[in-house]
């Protein structure tokens, strides 16, 4: 069954905070939920489906449904890291199409900044029962050094340069200057990026995303409900999801699961990459963006470096305006999971509600894509294509 047009995104809210030492994680989730409901013109009592991922405190949907005192008949807690929230939009569309709920609430929130998580530079000890743990933890895999190995291999195979990667940060910072909530609002140059301190070769500090507190929420609703509301209509027309790992030791760092999730989404939507007016692309690191652009079909494999250079991702300048909120590289990466903000900015663009300096004229087709987990080991990929009706 195709999910094309079976659900609409009627509410979207990004929490304005970037540092919240005085709030609990559950409280941030609920504030995001309230924000999305107000945005849509719906109330708490309209929600009959709840969706969350690993950032939800306690026992996921049980804890959060209880905290918010929701009366729902469907829950889903698929956790694929930062890509979860795009995948949850698709799962909400599935549930709506199957009649399991009518108004699906998705929330994300976290406080890694207040809690002082050294996200990128320290290995995270996991459960010893995780089958890969003994074979990886002793080598100190961190978020950044695993993505850095993808960048190193990309440079080796395709001649990609640090300067080309830097253009991705330049584009994000050019957009972030107009976002009053963005953590980093200074416009940077290619030289600024390549001269910033090396974190893990070949990735510099400015190749890495921010660490921020915050959150976001989305409301996915059935078509009849969306059409009865007073908001612009944002229809979900393409969905794709895929996990990718080390393939039994046949490790290949040159591509991501976007190769599969992107094709599924474009096929379902019946559109192609060149039709997209805007793209939200997960930007945990600059290399994340470059690889996803290739795997989604915006650039040939190996040509991502040429595609992103010279401002091609800057709204009003290049062919593919991306992450016009400043993205994870400059604006916000709440809970170290940037998937929900990718959908939120795409919704803003489709509604014509992005900042006027970065709004894409007549933005009727947009893509949002997320990578969760680690591109260097095992990750989730989720692609959404949305249309303004």
């Amino acid at each position, binding site marked *: 069954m195709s999910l094309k047009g079976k659900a609409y995104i009627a509410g979207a809210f990004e929490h304005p905070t970037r540092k919240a030492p005085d709030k609990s994680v559950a409280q941030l989730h609920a504030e995001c939920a309230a924000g999305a409901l107000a945005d849509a013109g719906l109330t708490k009592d309209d929600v009959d489906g709840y969706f969350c991922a690993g950032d939800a405190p306690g026992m996921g949907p049980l804890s959060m449904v209880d905290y918010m005192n929701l009366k729902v008949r469907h829950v889903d807690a698929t956790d694929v890291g930062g890509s979860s929230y795009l995948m949850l939009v698709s799962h909400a569309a599935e549930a709506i199409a199957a009649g399991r709920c009518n108004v699906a609430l998705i929330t994300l929130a976290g406080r890694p900044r207040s809690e002082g998580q050294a996200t990128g530079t320290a290995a995270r000890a996991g459960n010893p029962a995780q089958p*890969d*743990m*003994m074979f990886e*933890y002793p080598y100190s895999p961190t978020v950044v050094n695993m993505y850095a190995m993808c960048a190193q291999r990309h440079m080796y195979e395709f001649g990609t340069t640090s300067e080309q990667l830097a253009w991705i940060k330049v584009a994000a910072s050019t957009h972030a200057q107009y976002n009053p909530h963005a953590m980093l609002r200074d416009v940077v140059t290619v030289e600024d990026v390549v001269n910033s301190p090396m974190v*893990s070769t070949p990735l510099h500090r400015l190749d890495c995303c921010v660490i921020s507190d915050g959150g976001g929420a989305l409301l996915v609703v059935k078509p009849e409900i969306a059409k009865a509301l007073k908001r612009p209509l944002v229809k979900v027309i393409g969905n794709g999801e895929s996990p990718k790992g080390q393939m039994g030791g046949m490790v290949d760092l040159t591509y991501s699961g976007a190769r599969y999730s992107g094709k599924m989404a474009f096929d379902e939507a019946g559109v192609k990459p060149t039709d997209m007016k805007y793209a939200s692309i997960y930007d945990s690191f600059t290399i994340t963006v470059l690889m996803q652009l290739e795997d989604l079909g915006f650039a040939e494999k190996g040509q991502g470096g040429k595609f992103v250079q010279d401002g091609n991702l800057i709204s009003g300048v290049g062919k593919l305006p991306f992450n016009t909120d400043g993205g994870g590289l400059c604006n916000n990466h709440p809970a170290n999971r940037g998937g929900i903000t990718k959908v939120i900015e795409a919704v803003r663009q489709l509604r014509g509600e992005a900042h006027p300096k970065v709004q894409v004229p007549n933005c009727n087709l947009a893509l949002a894509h997320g990578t969760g987990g680690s591109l260097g080991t095992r990750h989730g990929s989720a692609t959404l294509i949305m249309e303004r009706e």
Partner: protein
Amino acid sequence: MAEQRKISFIGAPDTNPEVKPYWDACNESRLTLRKCGGCGKVHYYPRGICPFCFSTDGNWINASGKGKIYSFSVMERASPPFTMAYVTLEEGVTMMTNIIDTDFSKIKIGQDVKVVFLDSDTGQKVPMFTPV
């Protein structure tokens, strides 16, 4: 030659029969791999069930301990810095590891490396690689 970082081991091979032979072999300075008796393929990390054909008819084989660097990253931000890597073994599988006992600035993709075994904080030896 860079200072070696502390190696933290996680898990208890003694209570994990699926992978205990691998870690016991490391303690004897031998790198072993799982080879499937059904499809004949070697996989990594080791499993009791073949990730290619789901056969449970697997055997432990001794690896040559030789390989080439598939990718790497020098974690300069860490103190002391260390080199994360994927090494493709002669047997065809690629494993996560560290490159040690060398000038990190001279490490290259494609470089020939050989296995060495280092003590971790629990006393369990861990395989790492150094240029040939």
